[in-house]
């Protein structure tokens, strides 16, 4: 399992109700359910991935988070997870609002567009950055709203969203983001993971 999922599972611990939005093939859900005895649900737009999840015994609903989150009652989950998908929504703000409504706490991870390799790519090559995490061309990328760690933190401040924990990942190494190291982390991290409410 990738490091990001390890970090998320550590935050969640055991016996919680969890909703994984954009759960993909259910790798994280599987771990949360079978290794940590959480009660997990998933939402995923791609049929073949939903079928994979169902085969694993995971309760996943085929559907689009931009339309379907309304069906879940307020605070019906201990954690709502959105792993590297916020940037792919047409209206990320609306989706985030729904997550904060449904989950007592929400875990959001974002690929950091402020990562130094991305900055250099744009600066020197003058073309839209391609990296291991962002492998698509500008014309076929599903990512509509890229942001940096700093952008996300600013956004939360502006919208009165409380950040309980901010973590970042670089080459499988995990560390805390503080107000003191923000400038540095925003350059050297590939991924930001936030626990918000």
């Amino acid at each position, binding site marked *: 399992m990738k490091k990001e999922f390890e970090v998320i599972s550590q935050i969640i611990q055991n016996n919680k109700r969890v909703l994984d939005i954009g759960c993909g093939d259910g790798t994280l859900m599987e771990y949360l359910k079978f290794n940590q005895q959480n009660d997990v*649900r998933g939402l995923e737009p791609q*049929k073949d991935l*939903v079928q994979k999840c*169902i085969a694993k015994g995971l309760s996943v*609903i085929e*559907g689009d988070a931009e339309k379907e989150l309304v*069906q879940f009652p307020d605070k*019906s989950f201990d954690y709502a997870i959105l792993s590297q998908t916020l940037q792919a929504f047409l209206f990320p703000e609306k989706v985030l609002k729904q997550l904060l409504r449904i989950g007592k706490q929400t875990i959001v991870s974002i690929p950091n567009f402020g990562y130094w390799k991305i900055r250099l790519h744009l600066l020197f090559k003058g073309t839209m950055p391609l990296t291991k995490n962002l492998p698509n061309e500008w014309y076929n990328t599903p990512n509509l709203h890229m942001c940096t760690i700093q952008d996300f933190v600013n956004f939360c401040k502006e919208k009165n969203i409380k950040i309980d924990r901010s973590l970042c990942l670089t080459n499988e190494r995990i560390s805390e983001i503080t107000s003191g190291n923000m400038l540095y982390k925003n350059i050297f991290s590939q991924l930001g993971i936030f626990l918000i409410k």
Partner: protein
Amino acid sequence: MNKEVKNIKKLIVNQSLELDCGKIIKNFPIAYETYGTLNKSKSNAILAFHALSGDQFVTNINPITKQEGWWATAVGPGKAIDTNKYFVICINVLGGCMGSFGPKEINPDTNELFGTTFPVITIRDMVKAQIYLLEYLGIDKLLSITGGSMGGMQVLQFASLYPNKAHSAIPIACSASHSAQNIALNELGRQAIMADPTWNNGNYFKTNLSPDKGLAVARMAAHITYLSKKSLQEKFGRKLQDTGSLKFSFDADFQIESYLRHQGTKFVDRFDANSYLYITRAMDYFDLEKQFNGNLSSAFKNTKSKFCVISFSSDWLYPTIENKEIVMALNACGANVGFVEINSDKGHDSFLLNVPKLLKTLSEFLNSTYKEINNEKRI
């Protein structure tokens, strides 16, 4: 009308059952069939509910019609619902014509066939009647309940009535309340039967005739609703029957006409016209939301079952949106639910056909449920 129904498994229920219409029935038969072997712990039983035109003969050759069972694609040894592993039960619904208590049975009070004096039954009545067989077989909790179309409605009703009697539930291509369009289509079928003079207000058994023409038209109309425009176009298009040229008559020039006529005639050999009226009525009356004062979610609030709701992309009779309403209601009460819409061009009938993704989903979902409950037991 179908032939005598003999040598089939029947349970005579001696308890009395109060129907939704207020009438009380007792000492009534329910006909059933089982496949596979019930294991020692009685934990491998799956109750399959049949649809409007189905019966208890899910798979193998139906001993009455000599045709393959209605769900032979999915149920059998080594198939998605593997009878080497699971014990599959299916019961002919109340109002049916394959041995269960229905309009073709004799009314003990008059010693005549019931005909249209048979009480109007509901999906809830059908489901309540089936519980007696589970008691008789000593099955406390089913591994799963499943069915498509009206079978799916029974799944929903069962899950709501008996929240702790099934580990899992697979409603397929159905709806929690029959739509105006579906009521309209059923009414069309009923009117076709009633317009046949031999129907004789349901007393056709007295004349030894049966409203075959009316029932065949009802079946033809219904059959169109089970297919999609695309599948009809691809299979038949404007292809002509026989000579390959128009005959300038009202014979079946087009292959689609001949196909529908064949479906109609085939159906009257095995189905009772009055049963058709009763069962379509039960479907029309089905409104789970109304049973719970307009809140579908409360229908499932105590459910312990794990749901897998399945719909088909080209099904316009029970479209995805209606299946999704079930999913939403389940989510709203925190039930355990998965949902997938399966891509298929074959319309509503997809649930009966060889649609590999459906079969795969069924097999894998059942397999994971079976594994999970066996693991729990070990702990």
